[in-house]
């Protein structure tokens, strides 16, 4: 039986279910000092003075530093931005502790070190900072106006302009010549990523040896190691980074954070372990946010609704500083603003702006949910304009007429590996009972019921498998996109996999074991996966952008192939046969057609270990490594159908059904695939209905807690009904695409389309996110009674 494609239960679970799993805050070392961060209460202010004297007198306090105290001897470079998207992008230096100016509420202005968690918290309260307020850029509107400046020394808030705009006149002409045209502005509100585990860090130095071990709740231990070296000047080979069990990331643990560099620098300086765990309030206000864009979308079509042109202009909120991939995040969607549709004329421009708010960066989907939202909202508006059903307008515009295609060149310069959209749509509509829903909707409208039904569609495409290194180089990204894997057979025949991609909930240990077991014909229980420690796994580029399987998983498959080839050579030597005659069947190596020669592949481990009788020139041991650089991205797609009830009396929206039919190519473990979809869907719907990181006009975050920032619970969402189609990728030998972000990419648009659809008979055409009861009720009131929306 094939292991790949089976619903194998996860290896990770017993530890995590029993409390054996060790997250960052669970790891305690003797003599550790706790950092406490003093954070700016001002969105933009000159730091007139920092008085640490009272804090230093508090019990247990060992040291305290202002930004000025740390300007020399602690680091050699500011915190890194790895993605200068244009050569002239503005990127003001961002040091772990602000020196002269605080630029957002939450910016670190001083740090205290104390012997306990409690003493550090107390000491923070005793640091006195004097601020001289400066004008605050509290919104994108403020930023674009460019009157108040987030970084006065730059003279402007605009950090960069980036475009795919080869034929602007052609796009204009196509729009001008369109029979139908939709123009809309969509707001991608700021979101707080909200992994359940807050971030944390523990730096353990060796005062005599000089090396240092950094534990961090990070998605990117390998990148962190490089960047710690580049930032602190500690030789890279002296740095070991360990990501212990990591409690979710969603992009917010894909960064190089001030606290990480501070912990290393202070641990090195003091010769003592230094640690910190963020509070939820810090996580919400100071760790990166997601989204934060205004999207101006124009879409034209002919009389039948066939798209003639798409033009998109985005204003993107960088926040106060460029974090690791802040500037590039909106551009990850740039290639997808035509969605799953053929667009003869296409233009995309993005301008990035600084504001005095928490820096933005990757958040599940990073750029692609925004793109998917814009095109899928616009398609619904176009359908209304043309006067056809939302499903129909999609059918009419699918790439290759909805028929299967391979290697299709999109208007933004990428090549879609494969796609087959119509059957995927049909399956979703069928599962949702689309026609029945439409009939019920008509009935309720006719009856004038207070609870109206809305059906929202989204057919998305996304980019997985980040990424071909050459493509990243063309985009100005400061690293490659390969992944590394080592597979070794131990003397006892058990197999150890070393993964360069690092899990934080995705089930890598299970999936990687399945790939190995499937190829070798052995029990997945005989495979162990090592990861997330740069000493065990020195080469890797970590986990983000739905890249683990499509890059890392492929690397593992290729390394297993190499290992099997070596086993075959060894077996051929033992059996005195030609290697070309050796086959691997059900875990046994044998001469083809001679079952009596069958030798368990797992016995090769001991033979290679003893090395008593190896073929001429063969090295002892079975240890094969591959670094795989994918030739192309992978482009999963899918159709989501969201069904909502809107209470017209209160504006309350209730999601009553959700169907997700995703196509992520070959699936390794459908159990895990479905789990990824469930979680992604709820995260995307959360943007549509609940979540919004709100600031006031002075740049104060108004809801940095789970009490006010509404991460939904089980009580707010229904079951998610899933199914799939399978269109294998041409980008890699496993035919896999990726699914980590798909749910999020399809769901926000589906949910808002459903809310708008419920109210379309009142003439409602759009609804800002999140569709709060107040906003929905106001919109209804405006449509019915001419009130203010």
């Amino acid at each position, binding site marked *: 039986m094939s292991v790949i494609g089976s619903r194998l239960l996860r290896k990770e679970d017993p530890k995590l279910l029993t409390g054996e799993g060790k997250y960052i805050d669970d790891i305690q070392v003797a003599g550790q000092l706790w950092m406490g961060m003093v954070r700016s209460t001002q969105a933009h202010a000159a730091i007139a003075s920092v008085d640490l004297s009272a804090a230093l007198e508090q019990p247990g306090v060992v040291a305290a530093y202002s930004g000025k105290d740390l300007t020399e001897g602690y680091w050699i470079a500011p915190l890194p931005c790895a993605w200068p998207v244009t050569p002239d992008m503005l990127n003001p230096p961002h040091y772990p502790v602000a020196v002269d100016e605080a630029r957002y509420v939450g910016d670190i202005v001083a740090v205290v070190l104390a012997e306990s968690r409690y003493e550090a918290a107390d000491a923070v*309260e005793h640091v006195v900072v004097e601020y001289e307020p400066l004008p605050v850029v509290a919104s994108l509107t403020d930023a674009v106006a460019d009157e108040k400046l987030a970084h006065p020394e730059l003279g402007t808030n605009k950090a960069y302009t980036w475009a795919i705009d080869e034929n602007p006149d052609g796009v204009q002409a196509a729009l001008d010549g369109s029979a139908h045209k939709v123009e809309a502005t969509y707001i991608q509100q700021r979101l707080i990523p909200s992994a359940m585990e807050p971030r944390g860090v523990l730096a353990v130095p060796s005062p005599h040896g000089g090396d240092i071990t950094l534990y961090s709740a990070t998605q990117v231990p390998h990148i962190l190691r490089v960047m710690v070296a580049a930032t602190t000047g500690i030789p890279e080979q002296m740095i070991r980074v360990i990501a212990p069990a990591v409690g979710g990331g969603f992009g917010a643990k894909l960064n190089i954070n001030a606290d990480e560099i501070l912990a290393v620098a202070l641990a090195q300086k003091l010769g003592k372990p230094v640690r910190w765990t963020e509070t939820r309030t810090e996580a919400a206000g100071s760790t990166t946010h997601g989204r934060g864009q205004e999207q101006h979308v124009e879409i034209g079509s002919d009389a039948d609704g066939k798209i003639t042109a798409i033009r998109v202009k985005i204003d993107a909120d960088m926040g106060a500083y460029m974090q690791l991939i802040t500037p590039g995040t909106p551009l990850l969607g740039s290639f997808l603003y035509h969605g799953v549709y053929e667009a003869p004329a296409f233009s995309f421009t993005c301008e990035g702006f600084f504001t005095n708010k928490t820096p933005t960066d990757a958040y599940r989907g990073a750029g692609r949910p925004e793109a998917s939202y814009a095109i899928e909202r616009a398609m619904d508006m176009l359908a209304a304009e043309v006067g056809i059903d939302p499903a129909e307008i999609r059918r009419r515009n699918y790439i290759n007429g909805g028929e299967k295609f391979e290697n299709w060149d999109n208007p933004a310069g990428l090549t879609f590996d494969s796609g087959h959209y119509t059957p995927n749509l049909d399956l979703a509509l069928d599962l949702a009972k689309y026609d029945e829903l439409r009939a019920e909707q008509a009935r309720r409208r006719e009856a004038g019921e207070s609870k109206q039904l809305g059906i929202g569609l989204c057919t998305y495409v996304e980019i997985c498998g980040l990424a071909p290194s050459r493509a990243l180089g063309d985009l100005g990204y400061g690293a490659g996109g390969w992944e590394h894997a080592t597979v070794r057979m131990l003397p006892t025949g058990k197999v150890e996999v070393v993964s360069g991609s690092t899990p934080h909930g995705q089930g890598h240990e299970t999936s990687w074991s399945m790939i190995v077991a499937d190829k070798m014909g052995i029990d997945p229980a005989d495979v162990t996966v090592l990861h997330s420690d740069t000493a065990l796994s020195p080469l890797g580029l970590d986990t983000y952008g739905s890249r683990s399987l499509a890059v890392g998983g492929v690397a593992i498959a290729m390394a297993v192939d190499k290992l099997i080839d070596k086993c075959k050579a060894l077996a051929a030597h033992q059996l005195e046969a030609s290697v070309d005659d050796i086959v691997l069947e059900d875990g046994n190596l044998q001469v083809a057609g001679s079952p009596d020669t069958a030798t368990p592949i797992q016995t090769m481990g001991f033979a290679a270990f003893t090395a008593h009788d190896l073929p001429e020139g063969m090295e002892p041991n079975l240890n094969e490594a591959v670094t795989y650089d994918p030739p192309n991205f992978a482009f999963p797609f899918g159709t989501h159908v969201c069904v909502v009830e809107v209470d017209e009396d209160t504006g309350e929206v209730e999601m009553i059904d959700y169907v997700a039919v995703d196509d992520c190519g070959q699936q390794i473990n459908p159990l895990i695939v479905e789990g990824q979809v469930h979680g992604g869907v709820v995260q995307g719907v959360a943007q549509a209905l609940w979540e919004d990181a709100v600031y006031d006009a002075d740049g104060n975050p108004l809801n940095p807690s789970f*009490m006010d920032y509404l991460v939904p619970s089980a*009580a707010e969402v229904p079951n998610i009904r899933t199914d799939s189609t399978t269109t294998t990728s041409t980008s890699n030998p496993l035919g896999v695409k990726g699914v980590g972000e798909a749910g999020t990419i399809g769901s926000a648009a589906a949910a808002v389309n459903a809310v708008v659809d419920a109210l379309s008979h009142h003439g409602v055409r759009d609804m800002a996110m999140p569709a*709060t*009861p107040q906003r929905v009720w106001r919109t209804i009131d405006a449509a019915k009674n001419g009130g203010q929306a």
Partner: protein
Amino acid sequence: MIPAAFDYQVAESADHAIALLGEHGDESKLLAGGHSLVPMMKFRLATPTMVIDVGRLDDLRYIRAENGHVAIGALTRHHELENSDVLADACPMLKHVASLVGDPSVRHRGTLGGTLAHSDPASDLPAAVLALGGTLVAQGPSGTREIAANEFFTGYFESVLAPDEMLTEIRVPSGTGGWNYQKFNRRAQDWAIVGVGVADGGKGVSLVNMGSVPLRATAVEEALAGGASAADAAALAAEGTEPPTDLNADADYRGHLARTLVLRALTEAGVS
């Protein structure tokens, strides 16, 4: 998030708690279930120097049907209210409203007396007791006094309780006459954006989160008493209120919700 340091003493009895309050004055706080106080202390929005733990006064945990009313010890937990057979018979509204507070873990710890003394205008149980026309029994150094629920709440998180008084008992009239409670929120675990309690066939109508204190919807009650229809009475739900504006709702929308939910509650309570 860690509370500032404080001294702590377990009260052995209500008398002991009151003596301790007298001794430590304004800087002391009573701790019952702690589910309002401890979060405020973690944010250092409350920094008492003396915390007096009344959570072990088990003699104040009871639900008893008495002459025409149900007497509930102040330390009775929400979970006990929502599972009470006595309330099921004598005051089903209070039982139901208790089941809507926070989440199950919160209800296992939170107490009726604690939530009333906290006087949060967004809390469910104060509004329920208000609609029911309940009576609160407070004990102080000079004995006990009875306070009508509609005289208890004086301002945002403020009540008529003196610094050296504690609630010991809550009494709600027995009765199963038409009642309903509407809680409108965006997540099940959250406080009500607006809530409405209707008790005794519309004789008591209360509003949650429509001002700085839990409110009686007096305009609605009076209209109903004067023979108005539920719809006409409900239209008056926001009369005389000054609802807050926050991230979930502005004052105007809260007014709309109050009118809508009062009508729903009255209808569900059988008031036409």
